[in-house]
């Protein structure tokens, strides 16, 4: 602590330079924080996917349906303990900008299939008892100010027409990363209003298996069961399904890694150069310190500490800004339901800032350590 005034004085020697370096760290770590948030948002469903759930879609594409009759055949396959099905609705609430995911769900099985979504028995009972009933996620309800009892008008797009739903329940997630932006309503009601040629079809199935280790085997059995039929299937784990869905938008993870690496490499060059200049400017002072009895190791650590302090202040500031930015929630209003900076992201950001601070300060610190007093004093 007694040397802190020396380190602080050195940092305040060129206030603008220190402020700009701290600013570089802050901008880089802010960007890093956002990249972590986006990476998390895009891979959210894959990260939190149930390990004992398989998703079955039409082999041609996700938008092609599957027959409702598959439900009973699926239940007969060894290893499958439960089946549910969903349809994508794609309706518009008030304005096209108000996007959120709406699903026509199998009321009898939805709640058991997704225990991570928590809703009270009373609310679920009220929902199940009203064919126009609906359940909204807590995030979605908060976004539009919905409450239980509200009647929600939605304009159908895939199935045209004016639809109205009564909110009977609001679900929450067991984990902070659980998606609470969904809207569920009765598949039976959906089935009633679809054109005759698409009746008896569902969007996709989700099945629960008794042993996650047998996932690949069960998936193979399912696809064999429906091979050579008009509706061949493609079965994969929920995680693989979610990952594939995210990859439709491109290799987000690679992009994020590439951008992050470039940002940190640039930051390393900027900070390393700044520290090198800072050391070169005070060669004489460092020599005097050594003459007074300060060890080579002390000088090395002092330069490293200066670099670290800049990194920690700037990095901390950047991460804090990123956290504040994401606290406002999903800026896309529905496309990125899990839009938050997790503790692991904060820790990774601070660790990255420390690493850059140390690496950037290392070479200047070593040159300061190796400085010969006699040579340095001659230059003064």
């Amino acid at each position: 602590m007694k040397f802190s005034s020396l380190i602080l004085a050195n940092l305040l020697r060129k206030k603008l330079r220190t402020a700009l370096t701290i600013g570089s760290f802050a901008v880089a770590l802010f960007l890093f924080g956002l990249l972590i948030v986006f990476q998390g948002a895009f891979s959210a469903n894959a990260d939190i996917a149930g390990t004992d759930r398989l998703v079955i879609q039409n082999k041609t594409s996700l938008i092609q349906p599957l027959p409702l009759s598959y439900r009973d055949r699926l239940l007969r396959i060894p290893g499958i303990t439960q089946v549910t099905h969903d349809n994508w609705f794609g309706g518009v609430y008030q304005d096209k900008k108000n996007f959120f995911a709406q699903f026509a769900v199998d009321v009898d099985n939805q709640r058991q299939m997704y225990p991570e979504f928590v809703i009270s028995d009373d609310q679920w009972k009220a929902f199940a008892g009203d064919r126009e009933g609906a359940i909204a996620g807590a995030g979605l309800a908060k976004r539009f100010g919905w409450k239980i009892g509200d009647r929600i008008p939605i304009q159908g797009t895939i199935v045209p027409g004016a639809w109205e739903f009564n909110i009977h329940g609001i679900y929450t997630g067991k984990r902070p990363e659980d998606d609470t932006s969904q809207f569920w309503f009765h598949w039976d009601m959906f089935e009633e209003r679809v054109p005759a040629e698409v009746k008896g079809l569902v969007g996709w199935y989700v099945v629960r298996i008794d042993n996650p280790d047998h996932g690949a085997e069960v998936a193979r059995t399912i696809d064999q069961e429906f091979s050579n039929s008009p509706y061949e299937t493609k079965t994969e784990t929920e995680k693989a399904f979610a990952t594939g869905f995210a990859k439709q938008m491109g290799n987000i993870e690679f992009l994020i890694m590439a951008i992050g690496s470039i940002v940190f490499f640039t930051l390393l060059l900027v900070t390393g150069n700044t520290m090198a200049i800072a050391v070169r400017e005070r060669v004489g002072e460092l020599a005097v310190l050594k003459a007074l009895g300060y060890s080579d190791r002390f000088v090395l650590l002092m330069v490293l500490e200066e670099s670290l302090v800049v990194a920690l202040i700037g990095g901390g500031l950047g991460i804090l800004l990123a956290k504040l930015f994401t606290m406002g929630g999903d800026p896309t209003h529905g496309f990125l339901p899990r839009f938050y900076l997790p503790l692991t992201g904060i820790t990774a950001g601070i660790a990255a800032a420390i690493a850059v601070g140390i690496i950037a300060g290392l070479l200047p610190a070593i040159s300061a350590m190796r400085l010969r007093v006699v040579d340095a004093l001659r230059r003064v």
Partner: protein
Amino acid sequence: MVRVDGSGNGASLVSVRGLDKKYQRGGEEIHVLQGLNLDVDKGDFVAFMGPSGSGKTTLLNLLGGLDVPSAGTISVAGDEITHMAGRKLTTWRARHVGFVFQMYNLIPVLTAYQNVELPLLLTKLSSAERKEHVETALHVVGLADRMDHYPRQLSGGQEQRVAIARAIVSDPTFLLCDEPTGDLDRRSADEIMALIGRLVNEFKKTVLMVTHDPAVAQRAQITLHLEKGVLVEGAKGGRSA
């Protein structure tokens, strides 16, 4: 008593025997010091003179443990520093040597107080004890009322007085002054030399000083000239002897 013939009995505060220093410059070997002997007792005030390049500063650096000799030995208060290296030599320097440089070499971003405190940060003294020492040192050099000033707010003479306070604050075994008045006007130089004289006479400090200025050298008890790599005795100092 100062001797340059190697006749000291080993009881001197500073004892130098057969000191050699060679440099390589552009493939050429320069033999700066050649078998130099020196004995300095506690309380002595010695001035080293000689033409540029004669090795005065080199000798001071060797005595202060900032450089290593090519051959020979240097003992200070019984410690042979020529056998020390690294951390041990650094620690020895902190305990035994007070440096005063021609260009003052204060840290510009620290106040006078903080500059003087620097050597004490390496000790185990408490903050209160350090404060007492720093204030005493600044009082001795007559700058107790300038302790919160930065070097840029002080005159050259005042800066050098702060540097002297920094050199004496840890009560080192001896002071090494390299052209302490070289960057000062005559009046400031006189003040600095009066201060160094006071440190010798009043506080019994041992001072070894390099200077180009015969008037400054006159203040020392004895002036030694560096000629062809060895020391030869010059005139006794006028005021201090």
